[in-house]
């Protein structure tokens, strides 16, 4: 137990502490471990995608696993229970939601030629009108008349043919099967690995090093989990809203909104644009399109004022120019996926750099020793 602080002044000066024995791993060992990890990564490069997805999934699920574990349950049992629960939800969703997606997807594929034809007629008519009203725009428009079905051919070309999709199906199935398995082990053993690494760190700097990591983890974790939750809520609200106003393909459009919602500014424009185009191609009246736009406006306002404030909070900010540049770079690198991932990735990098710089500044602050203050020696306080 702690000795009485009041008696501490009577204690003789303690001898200077003996130098601690070297317990941490040497730099050479760290180098060897890093080289081994890089080598292993190269050998297993085919597994990079499922491992990365599994790590992300484990990161998202960690607070839930910790909550279950806090009931006094062993980590393995807590993670197993969590995965069983998630499996149940997936089965439920597959039973309830998947048929609707399948039905809408099948309808969209079978209607695609006629939808494309409707759009084609609209675009060609618009071009003719434009060329008649403003002849100077003719040099920006196609010179030759396009043949019937050009838009459908263009879409098919962009999507790729069926055999290519089938070739990708094997890879997708491989990723879908491996990701939960890796995620299970990451989630189960992640805490133990972190504790092991902490135990290897040099004791003198452990407090500040891990504290900085905790702060980064808190801000980034809150942001990423909030972003995912926000996208899911907004996608669900969009599905309900579009279904209420009788828009076509509400489930597919809701899913598309979920996917592009993390894109600041562009996400809403893309969602409204795609919904309006699909609605026009389906031959819906202009009033209906007005309702669809209204649904998106209301959800956008709700997102900004309530949903995002609750899920993400106001701790992470990015300059609009940085947002646009990161989206453009993401698009150039990985297409639509790159656009969606760009802002979260840049935010994570920016926040990490900010916190590390802040930490450096704090360390550079001059320290005033307490013992020198006018002879008033406070008792033990740290």
């Amino acid at each position, binding site marked *: *137990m*702690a*000795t009485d*602080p*009041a008696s*501490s*002044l009577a*204690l*003789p*000066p*303690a001898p*200077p*502490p*003996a*130098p*601690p*024995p070297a*317990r941490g791993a040497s730099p050479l060992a760290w180098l060897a471990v890093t080289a081994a990890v890089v080598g292993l990564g190269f050998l297993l490069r085919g597994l990079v995608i499922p491992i990365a997805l599994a790590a992300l999934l484990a990161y998202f699920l960690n607070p839930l696993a*910790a*909550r279950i*574990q*806090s*009931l*006094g*349950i*062993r*980590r393995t*049992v807590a993670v197993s229970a969590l995965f069983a629960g998630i499996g149940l939800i997936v089965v439920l969703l597959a039973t309830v939601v998947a048929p609707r997606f399948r039905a809408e997807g099948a309808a969209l594929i079978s209607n695609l030629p006629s939808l494309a034809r409707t759009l084609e007629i609209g675009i060609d008519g618009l071009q003719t009108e434009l060329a008649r009203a403003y002849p100077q725009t003719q040099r920006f428009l196609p010179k030759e008349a396009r043949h019937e079905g050009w838009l459908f051919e263009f879409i098919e070309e962009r999507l790729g043919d069926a055999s290519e999709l089938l070739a990708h199906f094997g890879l997708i199935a491989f990723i879908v099967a491996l990701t939960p398995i890796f995620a299970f082990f990451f989630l189960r053993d992640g805490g133990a690995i*972190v*504790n092991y690494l*902490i*135990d290897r760190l040099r*004791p*003198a700097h*452990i*407090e*500040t090093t*891990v*504290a900085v990591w*905790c*702060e980064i*983890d*808190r801000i980034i974790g809150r942001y990423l989990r909030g972003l995912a939750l926000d996208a899911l809520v907004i996608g669900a609200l969009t599905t309900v809203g579009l279904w209420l106003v009788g828009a076509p393909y509400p489930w597919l459009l809701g899913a598309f909104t979920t996917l592009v919602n993390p894109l600041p500014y562009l996400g809403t424009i893309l969602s409204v644009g795609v919904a309006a185009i699909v609605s026009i191609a389906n031959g819906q009246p202009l009033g209906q399109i007005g309702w669809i736009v209204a649904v998106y406006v209301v959800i956008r306002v709700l997102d900004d004022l309530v949903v995002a404030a609750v899920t993400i909070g106001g701790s992470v900010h990015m300059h609009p120019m940085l947002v646009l540049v990161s989206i453009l770079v993401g698009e150039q690198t990985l297409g639509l996926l790159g656009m969606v991932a760009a802002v979260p990735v840049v935010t994570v990098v920016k926040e990490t750099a900010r916190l590390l710089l802040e930490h450096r500044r*704090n*360390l550079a*602050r001059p*320290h005033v*020793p*307490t*013992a*020198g203050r*006018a*002879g*008033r*020696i*406070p*008792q*033990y*306080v*740290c």
Partner: protein
Amino acid sequence: MLERLPGWLNWARDTEHVRRVGILSRTPVFAGLPRRLLTRLAVQLFEKAYAPGEVVFSEGDPGKGLFVVLDGEVEVVRDTGQGPQRIVTFGPGTAFGELALIDDLPRSASALATMPTRLLILYRTHFEDLVAGDRTIGLVVAKNLLRLLAGYVRAANVPRAKTEAAVASAPAADASTPPAAR
């Protein structure tokens, strides 16, 4: 909590977690916290082993977390200008560095392990997350911290009062001497 469940569920019970909760419940900073909150607190703790003589933190380091002694012993020392002076020693079940849960200021003393020691570390960020999730934690811990601080202030004032009493009874010329010069 799981400790109330029947014996056949023993295989699912995390005995180390239950032990940690027990230690936390006996720690003055967390005294009075309901068990359900202590269990949430316990999963947020990092564990680290220290060899004899290893520094836990040094005077002047930014204070970031609270330490709970699981096993072993930790000595807190302060550099008085004439060498390090031992202030207090902590054994199993005690906590130190609690002021780091309140402010960002540097550590006012150094702590080092005097024997093979295992410590649990609670970082301020995790503590703040818990407080944000349940205000009861904040209220109870704040009350306990105030109690501890009051104890420190009283302990610090006893020798000061004695000194002042001695000064008051001394000749007038001595009383005019500034305290720092005495």
